[in-house]
């Protein structure tokens, strides 16, 4: 439908809010309470406009004015554009004196009780209230009374601190918890001008609590880990991808003086919308702890710092008699495609079949995978042997979205709809659309009507039988089968099922029910690496399966069953494995890498290195180069550029020039092999460790603050 904004005309779909229509037209109104993905509520009253619409007469024709144009019936009051539905022929005015005065007056009201904390507030420089006051305010206040006082250092949890005085009552945080993870944690207390935000005892028991820091328009909710660590203009911002799990959420990593201080969520409408999980958000604390910045070499039984030259000399002399084909190469599955193709090339140069990555797929269903967008719009979801909270947390949020029937919001030239009128507070959830079969409790159990504890593989067999018509009446398996038969249903299987080798069965169930199948990768790039030849070749040994003369192991924390005679470890910290190595090469973490990852949908996304100080740490490619150099060999993949060239040859040119949203590419046929190593994601443990480190950093911050 056509809508007129000031002097411009735009075409917008029916159901668009006046706010999105006017942004689409390139106009601007200030707003505090609206936020993409949250329900519009019309609370801040900043986004006022004048609006009117033509009307149709009894004959169905537009009522015309003196000039023969459709007569505009103006609404008697200024309207909050966020909660006003645009309609055919609507006229919206954003630039009149009345609108300007209304907006300036509202800025004045909003600022009345807002403390003058800007010089010491972590939000300063990135504060919506500062910006909007500057753009739309009077520039002066006529308020001569004492401001409202409330608690300024109120820890909502170890990780999030609340300043009740700074709150402008936009309700974003309250709505976020209710609407996105579906966990009500905080609300307003008291009323009128005394209204303040509070939680209940026990902190914020949600795995997604940190998002409220990103969405608070002011400095009322702050990241306790980053507290007072830097001003917004001092940070180096790096737009990259979280490598915590296979969802691959878009994030911005903020570093100052070479140290990562915080990670914030970044909008990716198709992947994480704008949310990230706490484990990913606060992962930098642990990632930066105990970092190796130089190589280490075992001398006299001790690992001591050494230069790369010394390492090279050492390896050159140690490897003289070692047949290259006997050298093992093993890596974790969070390495980039670039590192992966370098690993593959190195194995080829060595002529070694002793190569593997872990954890990994041992089977991969030959079915198209659903995207996260499709998951969020699924008609029903059956989860077997997966704990999304531990394996792919933000995918859990997309399932919550599907349970609310909150179809992904429309996209405009200005981005995701700011005020999507389809969303409302307290939308009805549909737990009947979700069924979970797993042996241990999972984070989504609270949202499902059907939860069955037990062996997921046995459950899938029973569902398969039900699909073939062999079920006893009214069993949970029959119900699950019926859910899967709904057009647009999805079956999600994770580590527990895959560890038991249940993917074939899952594939069978998906095929016979017509459901889509999402097999969760066990690590951030486990899916991408499956398309490189990184599994044991002819006669090759999997990790720890044979006693090899030499093995290079990157970022792998598991101890092998069989130890190589000479162990080279490439890692960020002195892990238990590294502590027993002969050579330790310092590695960069996922926050510091450049390269490409493939998320659980098959989306290729680019990693960019944050501005952190990492000493001599490198990614895997130079570590492999060092090994080859010691052997006097040379790989065609020796650096990022040659790696990308190789990838482009393999997968098509787009790998080198990914658009900001990444790309869903067909990667061809996977390379698969059985593995005796359990397909076991480490995300759960990963999250616990990372959050513990973040809490420690927050406590240290707090101690500093108290000491001041």
């Amino acid at each position, binding site marked *: 439908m056509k809508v007129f904004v000031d002097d411009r005309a735009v075409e917008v779909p029916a159901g668009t809010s006046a706010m999105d229509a006017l942004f689409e037209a390139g106009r601007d109104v200030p707003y505090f309470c609206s936020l993409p993905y949250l329900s519009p509520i019309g609370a801040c009253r900043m986004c006022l406009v004048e609006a009117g619409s033509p009307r149709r007469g009894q004959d169905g024709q537009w009522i015309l004015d003196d000039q023969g144009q459709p007569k505009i019936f103006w609404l008697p009051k200024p309207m909050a554009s966020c909660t006003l539905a645009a309609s055919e022929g609507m006229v919206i005015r954003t630039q009149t004196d009345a609108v300007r005065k209304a907006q300036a*007056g509202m800025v004045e009201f909003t600022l009345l009780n807002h403390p003058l904390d800007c010089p010491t507030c972590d939000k300063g420089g990135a504060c919506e209230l500062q910006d909007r006051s500057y753009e739309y305010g009077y520039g002066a206040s006529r308020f001569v009374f004492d401001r409202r006082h409330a608690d300024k250092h109120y820890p909502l949890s170890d990780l999030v601190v609340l300043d009740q005085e700074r709150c402008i009552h936009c309700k974003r945080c309250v709505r976020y918890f209710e609407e996105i993870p579906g966990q009500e944690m905080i609300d307003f207390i008291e009323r009128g001008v005394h209204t303040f935000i509070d939680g209940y005892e026990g902190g914020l028991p949600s795995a997604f609590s940190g998002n409220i820091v990103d969405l608070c328009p002011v400095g009322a909710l702050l990241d306790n880990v980053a507290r007072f660590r830097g001003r917004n203009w001092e940070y180096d911002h790096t737009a990259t991808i979280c490598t915590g799990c296979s969802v691959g959420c878009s994030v911005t990593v903020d570093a100052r003086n070479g140290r990562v201080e915080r990670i914030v969520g970044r909008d990716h409408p198709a992947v994480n919308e704008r949310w990230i999980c706490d484990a990913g958000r606060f992962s930098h604390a642990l990632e930066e702890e105990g970092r190796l910045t130089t190589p280490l070499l075992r001398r006299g039984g001790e690992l001591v710092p050494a230069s790369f030259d010394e390492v090279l000399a050492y390896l050159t002399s140690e490897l003289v008699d070692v047949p290259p084909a006997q050298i093992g190469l093993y890596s974790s599955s969070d390495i980039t495609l670039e590192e992966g193709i370098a690993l593959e090339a190195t194995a080829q140069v060595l002529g070694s079949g002793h190569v593997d990555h872990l954890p990994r797929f041992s089977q991969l269903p030959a079915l198209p995978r659903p995207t996260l967008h499709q998951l969020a719009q699924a008609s029903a979801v059956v989860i077997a042997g997966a704990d999304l909270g531990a394996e792919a947390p933000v995918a859990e949020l997309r399932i919550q979205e599907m349970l609310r029937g909150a179809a992904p919001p429309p996209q405009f030239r200005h981005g995701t709809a700011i005020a999507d009128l389809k969303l409302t507070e307290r939308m*009805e959830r549909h737990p009947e659309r979700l069924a979970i079969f797993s042996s241990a409790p999972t984070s989504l159990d609270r949202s499902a009507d059907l939860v069955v504890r037990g062996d997921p593989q046995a459950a899938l067999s029973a569902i398969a039988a039900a699909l073939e018509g062999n079920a006893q009446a009214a069993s949970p398996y029959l119900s699950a089968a019926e859910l899967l038969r709904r057009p647009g249903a999805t079956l999600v299987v994770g580590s527990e099922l895959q560890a038991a080798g249940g993917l074939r069965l899952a594939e069978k169930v998906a095929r016979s029910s017509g459901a889509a199948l999402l097999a969760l990768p066990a690590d951030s790039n486990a899916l991408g690496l499956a398309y490189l030849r990184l599994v044991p070749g002819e006669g090759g040994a999997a990790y720890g399966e044979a006693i090899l003369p030499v093995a290079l192991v990157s970022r792998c924390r598991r101890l092998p069953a069989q130890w190589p005679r000479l162990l080279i470890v490439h890692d960020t910290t002195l892990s238990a494995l590294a502590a027993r190595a002969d050579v330790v090469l310092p590695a960069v973490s996922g926050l510091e890498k450049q390269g490409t990852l493939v998320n659980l949908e098959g989306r290729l996304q680019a990693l960019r290195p944050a501005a952190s100080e990492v000493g001599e740490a490198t990614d895997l490619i130079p570590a492999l180069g060092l090994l080859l150099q010691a052997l006097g060999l040379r790989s065609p993949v020796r650096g990022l550029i040659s790696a990308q060239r190789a990838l482009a040859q393999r997968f098509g040119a787009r790998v080198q020039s990914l658009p900001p949203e990444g790309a869903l590419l067909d990667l061809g046929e996977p390379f698969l092999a059985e593995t005796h190593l359990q397909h076991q994601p480490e995300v759960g443990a990963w999250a616990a460790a990372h959050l513990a480190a973040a809490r420690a950093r927050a406590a240290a911050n707090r101690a500093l603050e108290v000491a001041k």
Partner: protein
Amino acid sequence: MTATAPRPITSGLDPRFALSLYAHVGEQGSWTLESYRARGGYQAARRALSMDPDRIIDEVKASGLRGRGGAGFATGLKWSFMPLKDGRQHYLLCNADESEPGSFKDRYLMSEDPHQLIEGMLIAGYAMRATVGYIYIRGEYILAAERLEGAISEARAAGILGSKVLGSDFDFQLQVHRGAGAYICGEETALMNSLEGLRANPRLKPPFPAAAGLYGLPTTINNVETLCAVTHILRYGASWHAQMGSGKSLGSKLYQISGPVHRPGVYELPMGTTFAELIEDWAGGPTEPIKAIIPGGSSCPMLPYQQDILDLPMDYEAVAAKGSMLGTGGVILIPQNYCIVNATWNLVRFYAHESCGKCTPCREGIAGWMVHVYEKLVRGQGRPEDVDLILDMSDNIAGKSFCALADACLGPVQSSIALFREEYDHLASTGQPLYPRQSRWLGGGAR
């Protein structure tokens, strides 16, 4: 009706006028089922239950009844917004939160004659296919709540509530819910939130309650007096109701009068009765000189106490034409020698205290700022520019808040400045009120 329609009844002194709503208020035991039945109670419900529900809505439409909760919205039209045959649960809510200063009519309807409300709700519930009703009653109305509870249990025991009401196929469950002391709970959507156990903040409209109300289901909400009037409409007929009143304001109405008059209280009068009749003939006239009249509860703009206003019929259109509202019909008189700034501050304090805090102009503008400016003025610490500040602030609030509460506060503020600017200016520039404060209880006043 005859070809020459009789002159409508627009005065309580018209011999054709008879009390209906308040006919039995004050009688000993009037709240019991026995008393109610003795005077023909539940006949209207019996008649209604034998009718096609749609005909009831037609009858209410024909009666010209308009909502008595303040806005005067046509009741029959509102009922017809309900999706009538959608098979979902429908709710009927009775708004008994009566918290607006100057309004105190519903209270006695409930404490003195609760069965006529129950009967009205039965009829309304049947008409709208609502099998569950709630009476959301102001928490302070303890006696009224007790009498209602008592009446409901009597009615249940007598087969008037519950399943198969009065032997028909209609089921109707009715419950009383007591509020916890917030004026905003009278706003219909905040009331629904409160009833659901949520914070009493108003909800976004649309969707309107008939589409998505209590628990997201079709809901109609009416004021106590509106629902009681339905009982009499079904008993005596739409034309009986429509013969009272003037223009588009029909029926019998409970007017309230407070302030310095000889007999303040609630008076049932036909709509269209003049202010003069209420004040002089019924309330016995003022006890001291009056300067302003608030025609319908504290949110309605003040009007000057002068003849053309006193001669106005108390109907929705006539009062609106003078720039105010009939509201709930709660008339408040403000004495000549009472400082208008202080009087208005009293009302601003009320609204500031009752702001729910959801939207910025009301929370910050009224509760956070305006009330302080008033206090400053009344304490003699004002400055001349403060009066314009209040006006400008009012302009920045007017029509911009989420619900009507903020505008309700501006009613007395803007009108009192418009009418009595010199009092404001005097106080703001000298620090002294034109009418100094005096005790009205200890002989200091003109009593």
